[in-house]
């Protein structure tokens, strides 16, 4: 996974003649002062003195040490220096041009989401949004931004969404999956209302620090458990969205689950249906089978693609979900990057290929029909 590559795999062009959409690109700051143009003196001083701790114990760095510095590909460091993902020029040559990316969705991390201090969280999220415009989308028209919101303060989040509702550079709202309360809880409804009004899907990226142990049985020991566990956190979030009736309340809402796999979706849908049929007296606000909400309102980005022993099993799993549910993503520049030339090991129709690599993304993200 860490082989150094000087250029894209030779067959990538053949694999992606249709052009590729990438639902998960991570732009990074060059340095800690990149956000200063959009932060007041008060917050600049605050960051200097107190930092921006989230609901975990380290001053700097993630709760579980990553497997690679900056969780990044070893070959993704820009030649001019700086963190992987911090140079637009290098991202263009190494990824956007080389992999024939026509549409790239920016999902900035470390952008103030989940920070303990709610006002600081809001200030950092806003700075991140302005920075996406100034440094990224205005300089490369293949890139689109996500409205990063301080989701533990849903009222402030809704205001931030409305601020960019008229700006076509922003195509989705971004949350992280490990929220403080399950994602369907009433607390978060102002976010869904604002996103629905703006016509933006709500993307839910893995990670975040809600303050709860990251499994129902307590804190695990290893980074591999955290990484594998993103799928369980997202299943819990989706279960909550469905059971709370969020899709009934906000019928135009679309959700995109990012970087937590997708092969679990059919089993979650079956399980929800089976037990909802027994327990439906508890949730009279649900008018349809839970699986129907998942089938129509939810999309999944593909990276990290589940790797099956036989290609047929992957194809069967995708057929259970529907080929219209998946949005290809690479996670550039992170270490577990998926290469568009290699992610689909089986023969599929041209229509399925187009939907998988870009067609579904063009339908889901606001204003990206092309």
């Amino acid at each position, binding site marked *: 996974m860490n082989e150094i590559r000087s250029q894209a795999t030779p067959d990538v062009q053949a694999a992606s003649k249709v052009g590729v959409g990438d639902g998960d690109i991570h732009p990074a700051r060059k340095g800690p002062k990149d956000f200063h143009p959009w932060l007041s003196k008060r917050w600049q001083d605050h960051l200097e003195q107190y930092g921006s701790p989230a609901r975990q114990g380290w001053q700097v760095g993630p709760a579980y040490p990553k497997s690679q510095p900056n969780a990044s590909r070893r070959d993704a460091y820009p030649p001019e220096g700086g963190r992987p993902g911090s140079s637009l020029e290098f991202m263009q040559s190494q990824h956007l041009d080389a992999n024939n990316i026509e549409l790239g969705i920016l999902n900035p991390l470390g952008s103030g989401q989940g920070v303990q201090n709610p006002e600081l969280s809001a200030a950092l999220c806003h700075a991140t949004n302005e920075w996406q415009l100034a440094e990224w989308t205005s300089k490369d028209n293949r890139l689109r931004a996500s409205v990063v919101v301080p989701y533990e303060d849903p009222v402030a989040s809704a205001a931030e969404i409305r601020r960019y509702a008229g700006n076509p550079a922003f195509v989705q709202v971004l949350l992280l999956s490990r929220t403080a309360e399950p994602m369907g809880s009433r607390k978060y409804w102002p976010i869904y209302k604002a996103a629905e009004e703006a016509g933006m899907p709500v993307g839910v990226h893995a990670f975040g620090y809600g303050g*709860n*142990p990251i499994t129902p049985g307590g804190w695990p020991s290893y*980074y591999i458990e955290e990484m594998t566990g993103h799928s369980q956190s997202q299943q819990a979030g989706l279960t909550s969205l469905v059971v709370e009736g969020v899709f009934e309340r906000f019928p135009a809402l679309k959700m995109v689950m990012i970087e937590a796999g997708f092969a*679990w979706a059919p089993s979650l849908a079956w399980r929800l249906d089976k*037990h909802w049929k027994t327990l439906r007296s508890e949730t009279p606000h649900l008018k349809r089978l839970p699986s129907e909400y998942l089938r129509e309102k939810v999309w999944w980005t593909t990276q990290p693609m589940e790797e099956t022993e036989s290609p047929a099993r992957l194809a069967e799993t995708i057929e259970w979900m529907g080929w219209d549910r998946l949005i290809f993503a690479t996670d550039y520049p992170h270490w577990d990057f998926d290469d568009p030339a290699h992610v689909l090991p089986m023969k599929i129709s041209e229509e399925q290929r187009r939907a998988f690599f870009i067609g579904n993304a063009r339908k889901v993200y606001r204003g990206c029909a092309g």
Partner: protein
Amino acid sequence: MTALPAGAIDCDIHPSVPSVQALMPYLEDHWREQVVMRGIDELNSISYPLNSPLTCRADWKPASGRPAADVATVAREALDPFRTSVAIANCLYGVQLLFSEDMGAAFARAVNDWMVKEWLDREPRLRASIVVPTQNVEMAVDEINRCAADKRFVQVLLLVSGDTPLGRRHHWPIYAACEKHGLAVGIHAGSSYHNPPTPVGWPSYYTEDYVGQAQAFQTQLTSLICEGVFTKFPNLKVVLLESGFTWLPAHLWRLTKYWRGLRMEIPWVDRAPGDIVRSNVRFSLQPVDGPPDQASLLKLFDHLQSDELLLFSTDYPHAQFDGMAALPDGLSAELARKIAIDNPRATYARLMETVA
């Protein structure tokens, strides 16, 4: 409906403690006095709300009192109709929820002694799991050692969600004791509720809690594998009870991919997660949280890549299927026999020792 072979081994039934009064004869004096003096109520966990439609199937609901609360009822409803040869009783009483280690240990002893006298001694088709005070590993091991001499105990019962992940090293004395005594480790749906029941906090609805049990099992399977439990205890059999199983293929694809990328972090895991599961981990059949159509279910069975993983269960008296349809449609007679008889026999070392 697939026909259930005669002599099936039902690996998950739930006799109820009718009331705390039923345990009083089995509690030591001090604890009996505590129950009275402090007005300690029934230890009924929110995992199974007493009157929810899932907790007891409508046709198994008694006119009054708790379901499955006496031997005659269980024999009539769960054993005779399914022609069951042996059924394993997993008593779900909220012992694990208590915060006091001493009280947890006292109630565990009472439940196990009650199980012997009121159930195992009265119904030869029954076997049982040892309830242990997971609040304290030393006390749990003491209870295993105390009960292990009775070979009708075939398994140690843990809840899927407790204070810390089950793979973590401080739990290992429990697994060592199980391996020594030839007991399986049964991990059942449910929680001590010492942590929120989802990784993103407390849900609003019971439906979320119950559906979410599958995610709790997924994270515990990850923990058991990654911590190296099966490297240390290669003969240990872990049975996930009332866990669902259709999530297993997708979970293993993801875990295996990360194991390939991150095994430098857990170098003691020297086999692929799927190989470990196929040799050491089993799943009770019900609930079959599967696709609605038979063709898809058969594909799912292919994704499981083994016909040895599933152990027959009715999950009596929980409502998981209608009538006698305990086996899903479309299984071959051969697979039905494996699930109903061969796989349970291969899993529970003690089962055969006590069959006349």
